[in-house]
Structure formats: structure tokens, C-alpha cells
């Protein structure tokens, strides 16, 4: 086994650099003559702007320029638009309102950008921002998605009546209705999927520079892949994509939120061109809460039809999904295509019908957040299954086992568009139950009861569908200094991509991992890339690396046949050496590459080994697994303590089990945060964000969590040659329902049947108190 072998728990090669402070983040970009930008944001959730007076701001010492929406409009800069507006179920087009980088007469959420102040120093820019006088005429606001369609609710967009962005459906409605009509039992549940804030440790930021002679911008920005930003900026500035170079330095956390083009990118590009100097903007934490896309925020009715044998017949859902004030890039896609594809989960539903209503509210736009639609669907399904088990008096594990799709049924086509290539759901479920010692829970509950505590155990079987761009590129270059450079089209924000790609390249080319360098994040150097999101990176970029490595080897075989004076067909490649079959005559790949490069340098005929390939990603993958949680609830105070958490995961082959575990543990913690701690709270009348800082918005901390035990059952994916499925989102998909099901189990004997996230002490305690009051 080599140090960088596949399936090895190789320590992350990027960590020494990042941990020693040698990472280079967006805020580390400092250019000569660089100015600083500050965004003036709306303090109101809904208002008409009657006047903007920038005179006092321009007069502030150090302020270079102040821009408003009028400046952008006059220069012909277009608003941003969602990339995926929906088609309504009646065939009409869903809404796709403009998202101006700076307000055009109206503001629609607290934090909506109104003006952009550029100054010599950050302090001067802040002073300038404070001096911008904006006159607002306040209007009524709506923040609650469940009330957004009510008669008389405040309207976010005049041409979107009832605040309806789209009314979308998937699945066979008639067939579903028919199955419901003959169901033995129907379980109904309305769940709230709480709005959360991504809270990456590095806030959003960017630096823009404009080269007037070339007519070209460079934008350094913390993205999840600069190509989408490039495309969007080119559209906004009505120019060629080639006019933009997007460079993504190291990124400190993203979780989906950094995928998108944002108003600040437009402001920076505009300002850099207008003033002829580079401009930097970096969000303060308070700004992040008010301007980063939020996640989730659904209110969903789910109905599960079951026959007399406890077999699931059909699933029907009606989901109200809060879009926020504008349609962010992928926002409409999240609760629709991305979310509903996993609605059938691992169960053999005969029919599924989903209706999704996207609604506008005066809140920060919502978009992809770790899992993006799949956690919401899994949460609904797993809560419904638990409720059905209680309704029918069937054991929760048994009910799931009874309804799981068998491995022999693979590939399995679901009623909502999924095509599962592989999966052994019952095996994974049983492994989890054994690991958790599920059957001995009763004794543990009794022990807690002796201490006055209510103990609960819960599980969730999740199924995730990875997604993203349908192609990916890799380029392998044998550099002059003897290193091998690999250029990738994905973008790490902390996942450990560099390590996994080094492992793959080392394995395929037989090159020591220490001599491989991974490069990402420059749209000039790397012409196309799908970026990172939807847990796609390893299976997508991995395939591209495989394809490119094969191309390198083909070229190497040709070069070796010339160097070794043998027929190409007789050359074999193994463990980094090209040899003539049946002999010990050969040359190692690095020496061969160096020889060829030297020949080329001398002007001689040479076959360079460098190669670039774009792999088509024909099928996406279906990671799945079983989460189990055990909790103790203090009935006197409502405090929930997570005692034990286990995951048995099928994320396919693990190229690096250490990184997979880290990804799953991080995801579980994030999902636990949503289940028990986190909630973006808006004041219902004024639309002010009340949880606008880390004092009011409770992220989980280390002492909230036990060790998260992760076991990997590697059931290879059959639709890609690596057999990998993806692990980036999985943890966050499984943990909210597992934790909530455990809490509800703990509270069941107290008479609590339903509870929405986050299960804060107050809500838990109130639920217990309400149940006690009812039972009196």
C-alpha cells in the first residue's frame, strides 16, 4: 500500500498549508491602489425609495464615489435573474422578477442593497455609507410563507398575485388519488422546515479590477466555482463571457451559499470600471445574516397512504416554499426538481404526487443549503413514516424494513424520476440497529426514567440524490520542475478535494502523491468547470481525472514506443512504468515526460504526455444510509441532550474514509443545528431579522454533540467507474429527522405527538406542558 493509495485514510494534504496560516483567502487579496466598498442596505423589509441623497457621502474625506441603482440603470447594467424559473402546472410561465444589484425604487427585504460607497479606506467607506440619506416610504411586509398567499397579505411583486412565484407539480396525480382512495390508513402531517443561515466561517467577499485597455475584468471572489459567476456577470453587463476572469482563492466554508452570483459582484465590477481602480468588499457578519442566501423555509403537508399489510401505497405532498424577496439563481429548483426526486426515498411507493408552491416574502432570498431540497423531502418522509408506525402500532424499524426496495430490484425506477443504480437498504438498516443496540433500548430508557429524564431513540433512513453539472473537465500537465499539475473544474471550500484528487491521480499514473499539485479556481486557466455543489465533486471530477489519466497513458505509450524502440502495442503501463511486455526494459512516466519535454524544447519531434479531457457525467448517484440518535429530555426544563449518534452510510466506495467520516460528521452537526438550535426569526410585522447575530442565532457548539460514530458499508455505485456516490451533503440530510424522531420518541409517553424544528428547550417544554394540559 502506498502512502497515497486509494481507500486509505490519507491525512489531508491541504491541511498543513491551511492550518499554518498559509491559506490565501479573498480578504488576503490586496492590489495596488485598491479601494474599499461598503454596501448601504435597506433597514426596512418593504419600502418605496422616495429619494437618495448622496451629496454628503461624496463629501466625506476619502470617499471616491457613491453609486445607486440609477447609476447602474443608466449604464445599462441588467439585473440578475434566476437561472431556473419554473413552469406552472397549468403550463404558464412562473415568475422570474428582476434582482437588481442596487434597488430600483423599491426595497424588498431588510438588507436589500441600496447604494455602494467606494473609498480610499474601509473606515472612510463606512463613514460615507452612513452619510447616504435614503428616504423611504414604508409599506406592509409579509415574512411567513404560510400566510403569504392569504387574501390581503402584503405583496412583494405587483405582477405576482398572491405572492405566488410558481405552482409546480410532479408525479401522477390521478394514480395517487386512486391509491389514496383505497388506502387502509392515511397518515397526515404538516411539518415546518425552519429557515437557516449558512454561517460559513469566512464571510462572502470579492475584489474586482478592470483593465480598460483590454476591456476585461478580473474578479477574485469566494465562490463554489467561478464559471457560473462569469456567465451571470457577462449577462448583467451585456458582454462576452471572455470579458470576465473569475479567480477563486481558498474558501472558508460555503455550504451551497457561495455558488451564486450576488448583487455585490455586480456592484464591484461596476465600481472598478467606473473609478478605474480595484475595489474590495468583504461582508461583515451582520451583513452575512442579511444578504447571504438562506436555506430551507418550507411548510409542507405530507400524506402517506398505507394498505392493510402496512405497505406504503402512495405519497402526496403540498409544499409551500419560501423563495424570499427575489428568486435566487437556483432557488426555484431546490424544492421542485432537487427536492422531489428523493420523495420516494428507499421505499417502494407505487405512486407519488407533489405540488410545490413557491412564494415571495419580504425576506432574504433562499437558495441551496447543504442538501438543497433533499433534506427537506427526507425530513418529511421520515417524520411521516414514524407517525405512520405510531398510528398503525407497527415497530418503526419493521415498518421501514417492510417497505424498502430490495437490492434485487435494482436499478429501481421511482415514480418521481429517480433511477437508483444500487443500494442494500435493509442490510444498512440492520447494521445500524445492531450498532445502536436498538433492541436493548428499553433498559436504557428505564435507567433514565429513574433519574427523572425521558429517553428517546430515533432513526431516519435517508436517501440523497447528488446533482450538478453534467460534465467535468480535468487537465494533467507534466511541469518543468518535475511536478505533475492537475487542473480541476470543481472548487473546494474545505472538503479535502486536493487530497482525494492526489490519491486518484497517484493511483492511476503511479506517481508519488508528493509530486502532484492540484489547481482550481481560475476561469482563465481552466476554461470550463462545473464547480462544487450537490455532493458532485468526487464522482464528477474523479471521472474526469480517470479519463484524462487514460489519455496521458495513451500518449505515454506512444512516446515510450519511440523511446524504447518497440511497437506501441507491446508497451504495458504498470505502477508508473512503461515497459516492453515480457522484458524488464522500460521507463518511468516522469522520466518519459521529462525526456519528451526536453526534446520539444530542443525543437525535436516529441510526444508530450499532457492531456485535458471533459468527461460526460451521465448519471448522478444515490448515497443513502441510516442515522440513529438517542436523546435524553429533561421534562422539567425541556433541555434536550444528545447522548449517542451513529451513522451507517452507503456512500459507495470511499476513496478516503478519513475525509468521508469528517464530511459526514460535519453534516450531522449541521443537521443537528437545524433540528435543535438554529432558526432565522423574522418579526412578523416589521420584517426585521431578529436573529441577526451569533448571539441570537444559535449554532451548535462542540459540547452539544457526542462523538458521531460513522460506519461505512461500501456498496459500489454502478454508474461510474470509481463506484463512489458522494458524501458532502449526506450527514445533513439524515440528521434532522433522526434527531427529531428521537425527541418525539422521548416525548411520546408524555403525550406529545408533534413538534417542529428547532426543538429548543422552550418549545419542548411547551409541548410537554400543552400535552399535560390536554390530558387533564
Amino acid at each position: 500500500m502506498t502512502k497515497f493509495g486509494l481507500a486509505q485514510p490519507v491525512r489531508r494534504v491541504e491541511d498543513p498549508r491551511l492550518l499554518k496560516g498559509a491559506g490565501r483567502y479573498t480578504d488576503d487579496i490586496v492590489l495596488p491602489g485598491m479601494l474599499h466598498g461598503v454596501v448601504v442596505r435597506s433597514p426596512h423589509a418593504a419600502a418605496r425609495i422616495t429619494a437618495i441623497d448622496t451629496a454628503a457621502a461624496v463629501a466625506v474625506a476619502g470617499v471616491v464615489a457613491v453609486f445607486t441603482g440609477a447609476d447602474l440603470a443608466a449604464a445599462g447594467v441588467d439585473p440578475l435573474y434566476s437561472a431556473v424559473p419554473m413552469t406552472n402546472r397549468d403550463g404558464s410561465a412562473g415568475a422570474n422578477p428582476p434582482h437588481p444589484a442596487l434597488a430600483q425604487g423599491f426595497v424588498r427585504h431588510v438588507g436589500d442593497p441600496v447604494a455602494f460607497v467606494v473609498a480610499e479606506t474601509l473606515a472612510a467607506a463606512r463613514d460615507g455609507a452612513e452619510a447616504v440619506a435614503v428616504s423611504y416610504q414604508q409599506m406592509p411586509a409579509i415574512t411567513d410563507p404560510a400566510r403569504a398567499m392569504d387574501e390581503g397579505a402584503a405583496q412583494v411583486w405587483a405582477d405576482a398575485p398572491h405572492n405566488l412565484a410558481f405552482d409546480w407539480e410532479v408525479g401522477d396525480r390521478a394514480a395517487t388519488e386512486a391509491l389514496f382512495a383505497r388506502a387502509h390508513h392515511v397518515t397526515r402531517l404538516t411539518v415546518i422546515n425552519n429557515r437557516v443561515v449558512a454561517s460559513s466561517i469566512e464571510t462572502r467577499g470579492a475584489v474586482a479590477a478592470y483593465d480598460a485597455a483590454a476591456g476585461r475584468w478580473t474578479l477574485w471572489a469566494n465562490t463554489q466555482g467561478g464559471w457560473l459567476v462569469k456567465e451571470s456577470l457577462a449577462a448583467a453587463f451585456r458582454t462576452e463571457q471572455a470579458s470576465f476572469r473569475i479567480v477563486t482563492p481558498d474558501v472558508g466554508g460555503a455550504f451551497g451559499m457561495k455558488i451564486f452570483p450576488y448583487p455585490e459582484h455586480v456592484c464591484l465590477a461596476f465600481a472598478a470600471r467606473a473609478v478605474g481602480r480595484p475595489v474590495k468588499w468583504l461582508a461583515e457578519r451582520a451583513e452575512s445574516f442579511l444578504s447571504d442566501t438562506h436555506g430551507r423555509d418550507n411548510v409542507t403537508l405530507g400524506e402517506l397512504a398505507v394498505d392493510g399489510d402496512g405497505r406504503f401505497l402512495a405519497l402526496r405532498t403540498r409544499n409551500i416554499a419560501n423563495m424570499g424577496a427575489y428568486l435566487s439563481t437556483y432557488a426555484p429548483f431546490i424544492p421542485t426538481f432537487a427536492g422531489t426526486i428523493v420523495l420516494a426515498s428507499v421505499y417502494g411507493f407505487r405512486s407519488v404526487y407533489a405540488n410545490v408552491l413557491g412564494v415571495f416574502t419580504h425576506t432574504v432570498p433562499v437558495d441551496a443549503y447543504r442538501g438543497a431540497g433533499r433534506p427537506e423531502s427526507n425530513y418529511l418522509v421520515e417524520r411521516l413514516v414514524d407517525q405512520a408506525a405510531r398510528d398503525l402500532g407497527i415497530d418503526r424499524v419493521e415498518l421501514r424494513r417492510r417497505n424498502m426496495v430490495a437490492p434485487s430490484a435494482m436499478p429501481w425506477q421511482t415514480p418521481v424520476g429517480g433511477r437508483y443504480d444500487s443500494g442494500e437498504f435493509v442490510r444498512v438498516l440492520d447494521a445500524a440497529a445492531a450498532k445502536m443496540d436498538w433492541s436493548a433500548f428499553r433498559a436504557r430508557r428505564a435507567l433514565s426514567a429513574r433519574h427523572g429524564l425521558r429517553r428517546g431513540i430515533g432513526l431516519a433512513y435517508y436517501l440523497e440524490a447528488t446533482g450538478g453539472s453534467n460534465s467535468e473537465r480535468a487537465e494533467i500537465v507534466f511541469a518543468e520542475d518535475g511536478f505533475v499539475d492537475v487542473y480541476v473544474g470543481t472548487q473546494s471550500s474545505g472538503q479535502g478535494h486536493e487530497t482525494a484528487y492526489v490519491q486518484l491521480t497517484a493511483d492511476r499514473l503511479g506517481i508519488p502523491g508528493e509530486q502532484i499539485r492540484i489547481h482550481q479556481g481560475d476561469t482563465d486557466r481552466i476554461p470550463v468547470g462545473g464547480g462544487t455543489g450537490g455532493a458532485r465533486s468526487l464522482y464528477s471530477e474523479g471521472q474526469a481525472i480517470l479519463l484524462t489519466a487514460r489519455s496521458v497513458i495513451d500518449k505515454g505509450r506512444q512516446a515510450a514506443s519511440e523511446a524504447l524502440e518497440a511497437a506501441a502495442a507491446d508497451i504495458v503501463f504498470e505502477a508508473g512504468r512503461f515497459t516492453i511486455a515480457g522484458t524488464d526494459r522500460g521507463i518511468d512516466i516522469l522520466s518519459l515526460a521529462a525526456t519528451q519535454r526536453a526534446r520539444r524544447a530542443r525543437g525535436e519531434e516529441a510526444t508530450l504526455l499532457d492531456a485535458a479531457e471533459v468527461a460526460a457525467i451521465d448519471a448522478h448517484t444515490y448515497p443513502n444510509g441510516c442515522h440513529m440518535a438517542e436523546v435524553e429530555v429533561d421534562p422539567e426544563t425541556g433541555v434536550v441532550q444528545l447522548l449517542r449518534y451513529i451513522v451507517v452510510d452507503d456512500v459507495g466506495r470511499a476513496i478516503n474514509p478519513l475525509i468521508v467520516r469528517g464530511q459526514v460528521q460535519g453534516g450531522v452537526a449541521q443537521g443537528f443545528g437545524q433540528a435543535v438550535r438554529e432558526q432565522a426569526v423574522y418579526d412578523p410585522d416589521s420584517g426585521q431579522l431578529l436573529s441577526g447575530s451569533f448571539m441570537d442565532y444559535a449554532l451548535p457548539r462542540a459540547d452539544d454533540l457526542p462523538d458521531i460514530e460513522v460506519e461505512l458499508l461500501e456498496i459500489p455505485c454502478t454508474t461510474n467507474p470509481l463506484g463512489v456516490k458522494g458524501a458532502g451533503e449526506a450527514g445533513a440530510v439524515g440528521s434532522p429527522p433522526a434527531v427529531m424522531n428521537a425527541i418525539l420518541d422521548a416525548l411520546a409517553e408524555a403525550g406529545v405527538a408533534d413538534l417542529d424544528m428547532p426543538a429548543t428547550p422552550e418549545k419542548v417544554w411547551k409541548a410537554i406542558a400543552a400535552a399535560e394540559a390536554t390530558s387533564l
Partner: protein
Amino acid sequence: MNLFEYVRPASLAEAIAAGAAPGAAFLAGGTNLLDLMKGGIARPSRLVDLTRLPGLGAIERGPEGGVRIGALVRNADLAHDPDFAQRFPAVAEALLSGASAQLRNAATVGGNLMQRTRCAYFYDPASACNKRDAGAGCAARGGERRLAAVLGASEQCIATHASDFCVPLAALDAVVEIAGAAGTREVALEDFHLLPGATPERESVLAPGELILAVRLPAAAAAFARHARYLKLRERTSYAFAVVSAAAALRIEAGAIVEGRIALGGVAAKPWRARGAEAVLSGQKPERALFRRAAEAALAEARPVGDNGFKIELARRIVARALALAAAGTPARLPALPASPFAPVPGGPHG
């Protein structure tokens, strides 16, 4: 434009003179004030940095067994002072249950008393707040009031005081030493913070220019050391303010409570001493039913605002449990998670 002057006085007299100017604010640890300034909630025209003033950084044991804690003593230094923690364990526990390790390293004793409310509307300059802007109105009244005060609130303000430290101090008869232009004076900690009434912008008895020199605990406070606890209910295991909290201290002789002390946090604009509840304890045998009666008395005057009635019952339970924990005896070492409601109560409902 938030232009302000920064002065670093060399003497107490200079500090008092500099701090008396309108718009002046004293700066010590800065853990609250700097955040408020960054958020545009506090806009002092002058910052008077006290951190270089001599003589305010000592923990001194008094001749009769009390302690005098200088205003600039850092929270962490006080909590980890072995002699102090042993004699006033509930105070140490309260300190360690607050904020984060980094903040405790910076935050000072005086600053802890002077910290502002965590009311979300106070922190949002776009919302009306009588505390921030006298006479502007109170957006919290008609808003999200979950964490609002249930004791001593007024029409004008329903904010709470966020300190953990002040809660056992109030229970243990701490005294605040104050210096001003007219000399020094002393105020019981219980009287130091003001209830909002019609003037919620006035939060303490300090006059402009007056500053805190020290906080004193009397010798009698150390007599509770064997039965003193602080218990804090919060929405996250650490680094969170109290939803409700309670300090309980008992003197138990021959199986009976000679004297009991109770104060609550998170329920009012000041640390709330519950003297009525203390009277219930006197001379009684320490047992669950008694603690529950004391808890009822402690919250007798509590009134919900909106739908936050849950805080009243939670506070009762926290008081009863703090008393049970105190009766069981102060642990030899502070628990790893100080003030956690998950601490087992020996012999109690969770023992």
C-alpha cells in the same frame, strides 16, 4: 459618521472628569461596548479607557473574611482564583457559565455589571427602543417576546439584564463601591440596577462620571460556601445567555435551613433577589416540597408578556432545582459544564 475621542486617563480623578462629559462612555474589557459601537447601537462621543488605571485590578481578602474585587479584574481571573472560588462557589460557577473562554478572559467585573440587555429590538437600530432612544417606543412589546422580562417590566420596556455574575452577587448581599466627583459611595448590588419604569434608558444608579471601583462580598457570604449553586437554563449548552437562571445559597445547621438566599437571572431588568422566597426557607427542613413552595413565592409577582408565560414556570423549576442542588452540597470541584440543568441532584428528583 461616528467620530469619537479616545482618552486614557492616568488617574481616577482624570477618569471621572473625562467620563462626566455628555456622550462619554467608559471602556474596560470592551466585550459589549465595542459590539454595540460596531452595530451603531451605542455612539459615544468619547471613550474613556480605564484599563491602565492603577489599583482596580486586585482581588483582596478582607480582614473579617469578605472579599473586595477590583472593577478591572477579569472574569476568568476571578473565577479561577482558588481562594475566591472555594469561598464563593456560586459566583465562580455563574462566571464560568457565561460567555466563552475568550470573552471571559477579556470581560471585567465592572463591565459585567454595566452590560446592556440582549433584547433583539435593542440591537436593531431600525426598531423602536426606549432604552436606546428614550421616548421612541418599544417594538418588543408587540413583537417576538419569548425572552422578555416577567418581573418588574413596564409599558416602556420589557428587556432583561443578561448578567450571570450579578445573580449570585445579589443573593449574597454584594456591595458596589462607586467613585464620582463628589467622592466615593456604596450601593447594595441589589439596588444598583434600576427597573425600567418610565425611564428604561436609565439602567443603574450611576451618575455621569461615576464609575465602579470594586464589588465587595461580605464575610457572611462565605458562610454559604458549602451549599451554594448557580443554575442556568439556556438554549445551547454553552455560549448562550440565560432563558432563566437562579442562584441558591443555604446555611444548613442540624438538618435545618438557618438562612437561605435566592436570586434569579433572565427574568427582569436587574438580577432579581427573591426575599419572599427566602423567608419561606427559614428554619425549615431542606426538602423538595419546601423548595417548590419557595419557588412559587419567588415568582409570585411574575406576569407574562405575550406568550412567554412558560418562563415563569421554567423559572420556578430552576429555582427549586437550584435549591435542591445547593442543599445536596457544593461539589468539591465545579462541574465541567458549570450551571448545567443536567447536573444530577443527589437524593433529588434526578439523583
